[in-house]
């Protein structure tokens, strides 16, 4: 069994933040777990899925975050302890339910885990979701380290049941994808009553529009609960106030920023030198404690990883009290850059400034620095050797070449294939004016013209088509993966089909949700708990939605893939091509790695680089010899490069 599920109170071990959150749910006796994968939140669900069978609860990866939060709230309305997890962007997808749920509250403890990504390591935005919790008027906790993540997740279930309100647990990459020592607590074994009561404590409790007062009345009910939330925050042990009498400065921090502050005070040997307020219960924040900090100090530094939410609250409290204090952070008097994630260097420098102490680190001699910069070439991210997307993109690249300027736009989407829009970092691009242009596609990493968020590619293709009009010589394409297809493409698919938008939609079906670490997709025939499920049929879904042109082609058969894409693009009307080929890492995992046989006959190779253009990391090129090569450590014998070699220089015997 996964160590996170061990019934060993007092055990101390290294846990990743996400594992710690899952442990908190296990200790609270979670009954239903649900989510949609998204870095950096995924491991919360992976661990729960892993443990569900052993510990006797249910876990599913839902089709998307909106479904996940609906499944979660349904479970919680019956009284079941429920955890739902998603990444920052996932909350946007779940927003409709999320913003409405506080109007009724819940019966069983419901913990909504959202992992933000300051620094946008894995995300399309740096959005701070704490203000979104505030906007929904839902209590929000933010842990400073892995131990607190576990403790908060555990405590959040009790809090949720006490207040009959979902609890928002905000994490960030540096918490979720960082590890620390955690001491396990008891696993609660009490079985809670699960059932149904339509008039639970209030008439028509679970009908937002219901009598007596409808939604506005329920909003009033929620407003009346605020003092209750605030009282919980005031007495919460997750808020830690230390007043140092006589110190003119203070530091207020929340979440992982608190850990950076503690590191800074330790390194500067200034622990206990100024008043501090660590806030873990961030919405509503503990106003009385904040007022005490305002009374204690003249200058207050607020450190938070995201928007100046607590900073602005502090300013509001100061203004209400008629206090003139210097409150600095990331807001109007920014001493910390207003974007990108916090880091220990930034924090130690502002803390040192606040305390008036010297801090500097050893400067590298100019010449060494220059040399080091020169040697540090980029390592662009690339698709894996033998990835089926390489085949799909090689086919698409051939079609783009054939149509030239006519094939104007290829809309991307989110998944491993989004790398088709990353470019190659070492390449220098000069932006041009607004003239219509089609750029050459030298590698699959340049094939996509847009990448936004999950499911947006196909909808944007429809919009581009409508704007370009019925100009048949301007082709518009969109791509999406199988997980993304079911997650957010279905409504746009219906739109394109119903109104017969003349676009081509390529579904890159590798049977898994790969980018987030190979969770099952509706194509995988397995669920998150390891059970067998049927695969959903993408072609049948398209046909049922009325799509007239639907083709399935093998992503590893270049000729077949190229032909199918070509035919779809020349078709007048909405066309769909499903390019299939299972993720090669999953195949290797199942079938084991074998010595590859593919190699280049150097005497035959003419150095044309067509194999290099596939963008496979296993294909190398020696610029001196002007010969291609195959890296045997990476090659998986997928055969794509063999198919593009015009002189049969690449062979497998």
């Amino acid at each position, binding site marked *: 069994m996964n160590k996170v599920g061990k019934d060993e109170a007092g055990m101390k071990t290294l846990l990743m933040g996400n594992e710690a959150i899952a442990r908190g749910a296990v200790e609270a006796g979670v009954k239903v777990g649900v989510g949609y994968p998204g870095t950096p939140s995924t491991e919360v669900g992976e661990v729960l899925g892993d443990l569900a069978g052993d510990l006797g609860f249910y876990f599913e990866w839902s089709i998307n975050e909106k479904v996940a939060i609906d499944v979660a709230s349904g479970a919680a309305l019956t009284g079941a302890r429920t955890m739902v997890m998603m990444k920052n962007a996932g909350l946007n997808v779940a927003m409709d339910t999320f913003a409405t749920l506080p109007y009724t509250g819940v019966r069983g403890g419901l913990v909504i885990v959202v992992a933000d990504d300051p620094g946008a390591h894995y995300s399309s935005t740096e959005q701070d979701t704490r203000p979104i919790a505030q906007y929904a008027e839902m209590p929000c906790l933010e842990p400073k380290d892995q131990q607190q993540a576990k403790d908060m997740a555990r405590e959040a279930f009790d809090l949720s049941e006490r207040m009959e309100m979902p609890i928002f647990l905000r994490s960030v990459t540096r918490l979720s994808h960082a590890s*620390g020592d955690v001491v396990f607590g008891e696993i609660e074994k009490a079985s809670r009553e699960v059932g149904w009561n339509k008039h639970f404590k209030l008439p028509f409790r679970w009908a937002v529009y219901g009598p007596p007062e409808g939604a506005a009345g329920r909003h009033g009910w929620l407003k009346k609960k605020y003092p209750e939330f605030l009282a919980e925050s005031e007495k919460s042990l997750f808020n830690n106030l230390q007043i140092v009498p006589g110190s003119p400065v203070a530091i207020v921090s929340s979440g992982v920023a608190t850990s950076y502050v503690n590191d800074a005070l330790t*390194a500067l040997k200034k622990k206990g030198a100024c008043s501090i307020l660590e806030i873990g219960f961030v919405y509503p924040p503990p106003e009385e404690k904040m007022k005490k900090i305002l009374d204690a100090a003249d200058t207050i530094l607020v450190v938070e990883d995201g928007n100046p939410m607590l900073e602005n609250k502090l300013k509001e409290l100061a203004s209400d009290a008629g206090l003139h204090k210097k409150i600095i952070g990331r807001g109007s008097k920014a001493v910390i850059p207003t974007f990108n994630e916090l880091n*220990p260097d930034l924090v130690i420098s502002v803390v040192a400034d606040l305390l008036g102490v010297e801090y500097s680190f050893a400067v590298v001699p100019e010449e060494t620095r220059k040399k*080091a910069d020169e040697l540090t070439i980029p390592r662009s991210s690339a698709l894996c050797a033998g990835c089926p997307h390489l085949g799909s993109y090689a086919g698409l690249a051939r079609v783009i070449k054939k149509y030239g300027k006519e094939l104007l736009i290829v809309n991307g989407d989110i998944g491993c294939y989004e790398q088709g829009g990353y470019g190659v970092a070492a390449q220098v691009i000069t932006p041009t004016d607004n003239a219509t242009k089609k750029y050459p596609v030298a590698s699959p990493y340049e094939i996509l013209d847009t990448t936004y968020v999950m499911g947006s590619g196909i909808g944007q293709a429809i919009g581009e088509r409508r704007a370009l009009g019925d100009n048949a010589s301007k082709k518009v394409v969109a791509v999406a993966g199988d997980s993304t297809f079911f997650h957010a493409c279905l409504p746009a698919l219906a739109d394109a089909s119903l109104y017969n938008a003349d676009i081509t939609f390529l579904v890159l079906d590798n049977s898994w949700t790969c980018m987030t670490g190979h969770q099952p997709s509706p194509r995988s025939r397995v669920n998150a708990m390891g059970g067998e499920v049927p695969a959903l049929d993408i072609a049948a879904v398209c046909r049922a939605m009325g799509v007239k042109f639907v083709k399935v082609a093998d992503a590893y058969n270049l000729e077949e893939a190229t032909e199918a894409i070509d035919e779809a693009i020349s078709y007048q009307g909405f066309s769909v091509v499903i390019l299939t080929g299972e993720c090669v890492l999953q195949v290797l995992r199942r079938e084991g790695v074998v010595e590859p046989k593919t190699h280049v006959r150097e005497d035959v190779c003419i150095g044309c680089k067509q194999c290099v253009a596939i963008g496979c990391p296993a294909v190398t090129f020696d610029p001196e010899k002007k010969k291609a090569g195959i890296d045997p450590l990476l090659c998986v014998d997928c055969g794509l490069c063999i198919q593009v070699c015009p002189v049969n220089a690449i062979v497998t015997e």
Partner: protein
Amino acid sequence: MELDVIICGVGGQGSVRASHILAEAAINAGNRARVGETFGAAMRGGKVSSHVRIGDVYGPLVRERSADIIVAQEPLEGMRIGRKYAAPDGVVILNPPPVYPVDVSTGNAVYPPVDEIEETLRGLAGTVAVVNGTTIAREIGNPRSMNIVMLGAAYGTGLITFDRQILLDVIAAAFKPKFKELNEKAFLAGEKAYKDAVS
């Protein structure tokens, strides 16, 4: 014990695994520990670095120019991390075989000469030790144990002050039982290789 270590390389080399092993061992030896992982998506071949902090630590990230040990499983990544994090009196342990990025194979960049990387790192850190973990692991008969060889080399610095057996126990528990002996060999070979490299 107070120690900041960064283990870097490319996806698939086991940097994150090695960093978790080190941190878990540190905890078992009675320390507090943090690990901060920085890596891309699930794809192979991306740059990976993992910060391990042991002692009176709170956050997961090492400050600039304060890594006591940098374990570079790949030279370009060693350069990338070394230029920012190597402490002036710190140690860099370098596994020399390059893993070429697509930027090189597509002809957009030239892979920097490994001896120049080594030379430049000498200007940044107190000690640079070249330990060919890839070759040593292959000789031992398990190429995948390169990360364990490099962990052994890190132990060879003497900066990790708890008992070697604590690490070996965590390593044994982290892999299938059949790898126990090979991994132990790999660790000890790494430790010896470090000592040879700096003597």
